[in-house]
C-alpha cells in the first residue's frame, strides 16, 4: 500500500510532517494513521507542513480536524504551515480550519511556537 507523499522527522521534541502532492480520499486516512502512530507521548506537538501540496479535499480537512482533536486529548498541539497553492488555501478558508488549528508561514515559526521559552 502506498502511504502517500509523507515525510516525518523529529525536531527538538516536535514531530514535523512534510506532505507533498495531492491529499484526498485515497490517502488522507493513511497519512492520519502514520502521524498518529509516530508521534511520541513525550512530544510537544506536531507541525504539518502543507506548503508543497497541490490539492486538499474534504477527506484531507477531516483528517486535519481528527488529528487536532486526538492531539488535544493528549495535551499536544497541532500547527499547520500553509504558504501553499491557491486552491488549497481556498478549501482551508471555506472549511474554517483556521478557527480550530493555528497556522504559520514557515516550519521554523511553527516549531518556535510549540517550544516552551
Amino acid at each position, binding site marked *: 500500500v502506498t502511504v502517500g507523499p509523507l515525510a516525518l522527522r523529529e525536531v527538538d521534541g516536535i514531530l514535523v510532517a512534510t506532505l507533498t502532492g*495531492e491529499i*484526498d*480520499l*485515497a490517502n488522507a486516512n493513511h497519512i492520519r494513521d502514520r502521524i498518529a502512530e509516530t508521534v511520541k507521548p513525550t512530544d510537544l506537538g506536531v507541525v504539518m507542513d502543507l506548503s508543497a501540496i497541490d*490539492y486538499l*479535499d*474534504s*477527506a484531507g*480537512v*477531516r483528517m486535519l480536524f481528527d488529528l487536532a482533536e486526538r492531539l488535544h486529548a493528549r495535551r499536544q498541539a497541532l500547527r499547520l504551515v500553509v504558504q501553499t497553492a*491557491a*486552491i488549497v488555501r*481556498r*478549501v482551508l478558508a*471555506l*472549511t474554517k480550519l483556521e478557527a480550530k488549528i493555528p497556522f504559520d508561514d514557515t516550519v521554523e515559526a511553527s516549531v518556535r511556537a510549540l517550544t516552551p521559552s
Partner: protein
Amino acid sequence: LSAPRRADDVALLVLRSSLAGQPFSIELPAWPRELAGLRRGLQGWLRRSGVPEDVVGDVVVAVNEAAANAIEHAYGLHDARFSVRAERIDGDLRFEVADTGRWRAARFGHDRGRGLDLIHLLVDEVAIDPGSHGTTVRLVRRLPSPAS
C-alpha cells in the same frame, strides 16, 4: 490486476476530453484513487473551454466532493462505477455526478457533511436526486458575464 484497467480509463479520459467544444463525460470505477485523474481531466476540459481560472478551481473542488461521496457510498460493493458529465451551456457550467447502478441510493452521511457544505459554497445550484437506479447530483455554476 487493476493496472491495465486504470490505464484504459486514463486513455479514455484523454480521448474524450480532447474533443474541444464537446461535453466532458467519463465513467470510472468507484475507487478513491480515480479522483486525482478525474480532477486532472476535468481541469483540462474547463481550461480548454475558456473558463476563468478561479472558477476552474472552485468547480473542480465541488465535482471532486460529489464524486468522493459516490465512491464512499459504493464501499464494499463489487464493480461499482460512477459517471461524471460536464457541459458549458450559454453562461452556465452544468455538472452531473451519478452512480450507475445497483447499489443503494447514496446519501450524504454526517461524515460527508463537510463535503456537501463545500459544494454549496462553490456552486450556484445543487440538486440531489436519489433515484431508484442510483443517486444523481446536479450542480450549476454561473459564469461571469463577458465584459461589454
